[in-house]
């Protein structure tokens, strides 16, 4: 089982010595407080990095869309306009905050908070590397499916509370779309739970390997389809085009955040961009091998044995490689999400429901049956293992 952040920190001698000294100094057992501090610092770092990625996500979105449409995109603030998101942030803080007169103030304030809290809580289970996982919950994926529904509640509350017709339409569409697409996503995740034999993301990643043929996406034909079901569901969950009906700017003005101004609007946008990263990370952990590095470089044992480095440095190099592997795959998927947005036109609201209930859900159920039967018949072997058995049998048969 992959350990959490605290176990990772705890393996260093310096940390153990420091805890022992603090124990002596205060005369009581301070392990609990130190654990809390380690998690607090870890959580602050993760949130900080994620907020930056969310900000850079808005910049990347504009730059990539400009690239696709043969425009320049933001290029005034900082080199290549890379500081644009900071300028946008300053603008949002300085904007006047307007409450619609008819709005339900309490819910209006609560909605952005729910969106941010729901997204940040999902960060706890994202497996950045085997050491940098804030909480390796034994119900990880179940927790994620549950807590990410908070964003759906936030979208609906945001739309409902403003008491504006555009907001109401967007909120209703958002709520129905988010809950509908949760069904294929949940059923597709079930296939990975079946294959890995555990609900935690640690179990997901540890049962995969570093090379593509060891990933779950190429495990058997059903998981290959399953990945695309998951990816399409993911686009709809995050209200991305071609499923951006809740905020369809050409028909609903801005959808559920029409009446939001200034910082509150900024928080909604931030939550959306972080959620895309989190869901891309989940897709990577479940289907694309997560933080695994090819040839077992991630454990760092090879650096210790071949290069003669101290064990602790080898281990840290491995962690950095794992983090790099995870972030690279996630950002590649993030790019695809943006690419899809600027390539496909928005679909109609009845088509959203048709795609979900008449195509994705039956397909996800078919995959579920397929994976279950596949595991039972092949004793949990991937298609490549089956092929290698076949070739081995043919080879030995030809030799005789």
């Amino acid at each position, binding site marked *: 089982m992959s350990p959490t952040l605290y176990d990772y920190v705890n393996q260093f001698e310096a940390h153990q010595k420091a805890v022992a000294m603090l124990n002596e100094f205060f005369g009581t057992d301070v392990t609990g407080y130190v654990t809390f501090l380690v998690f607090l610092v870890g959580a602050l770092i993760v949130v900080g990095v994620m907020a930056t990625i969310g900000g850079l996500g808005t910049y990347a979105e504009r730059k990539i869309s400009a690239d696709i449409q043969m425009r320049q995109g933001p290029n005034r603030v900082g080199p290549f306009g890379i500081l644009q998101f900071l300028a946008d942030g300053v603008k949002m803080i300085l904007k006047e905050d307007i409450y619609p*007169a008819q709005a339900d103030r309490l819910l209006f304030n609560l909605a952005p*908070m729910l969106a941010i809290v729901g997204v940040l*809580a999902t960060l706890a289970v994202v497996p950045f590397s085997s050491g940098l996982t804030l909480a390796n919950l034994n119900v990880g994926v179940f927790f994620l499916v549950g807590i990410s529904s908070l964003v759906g509640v936030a979208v609906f509350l945001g739309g409902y509370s403003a008491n504006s017709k555009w907001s109401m339409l967007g909120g209703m569409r958002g709520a129905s779309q988010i809950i509908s697409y949760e069904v294929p996503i949940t059923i597709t995740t*079930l296939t990975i739970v*079946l*294959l890995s*034999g555990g609900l935690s993301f640690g179990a997901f990643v540890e049962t995969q390997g570093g090379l593509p043929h060891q990933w779950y996406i190429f495990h058997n034909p059903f998981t290959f389809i399953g990945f695309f079901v998951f990816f399409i569901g993911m686009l709809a969950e995050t209200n991305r085009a071609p499923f951006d009906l809740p905020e369809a700017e050409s028909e609903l003005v801005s959808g559920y955040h029409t009446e939001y101004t200034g910082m509150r609007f900024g928080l909604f946008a931030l939550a959306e961009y972080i959620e895309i990263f989190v869901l891309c990370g989940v897709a990577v952990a479940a289907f694309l091998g997560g933080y695994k590095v090819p040839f077992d470089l991630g454990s760092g044992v090879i650096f210790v044995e071949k290069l003669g480095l101290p064990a602790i440095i080898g281990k840290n190099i491995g962690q950095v490689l794992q983090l790099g592997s995870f972030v690279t795959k996630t950002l590649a998927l993030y790019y695809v999400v943006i690419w899809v947005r600027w390539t496909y036109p928005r679909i109609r609201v009845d088509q959203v429901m048709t795609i979900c209930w008449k195509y994705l859900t039956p397909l996800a*159920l078919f995959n579920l049956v397929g994976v279950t039967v596949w595991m*039972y018949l092949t*004793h949990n072997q991937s298609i490549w293992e089956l092929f290698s058995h076949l070739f081995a049998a043919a080879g030995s048969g030809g030799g005789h």
Partner: protein
Amino acid sequence: MASYTLDVYMPVVILMAIGVLLVLVSVFLAQIIRPFKPSALKEQAYECGEDPVGTAWANFNVRFYVVSLIFIVFDVEGALMFPVASIFRRFVEIGEGGVLLGSLLIFIAVLVFGIVYCWSKGDLDWVRSFQLSQEQINELKGVEDKA
């Protein structure tokens, strides 16, 4: 083992607290430095420049209600399958997968039955269409002719 105590949820609580603080602090910070000049015109709900007509809290399309009902059924069924799914691999490895395979397939069959039922009832269609019988069509035509 530590992972079976509630301690492992500490990062979740910390992250949620950070989220609440992030919202409160940023909104409070904005409140100090931003301008504040409310007027009745600004506080109107946006309806593309027209004066808003009535309230948005009115009756709404019932399709959304049906979708949420279908969702609840499917989500509960999915949630019930998670425990079985998580031990299936271990049972397959010791060669006892048949029992779980059977129970999983029964569960999936119930789900498939559910979706087939909803589909045949027309609850999955966003715009429900009604096929009129020839008599009804004639009747409607008769009404039109009289008018």
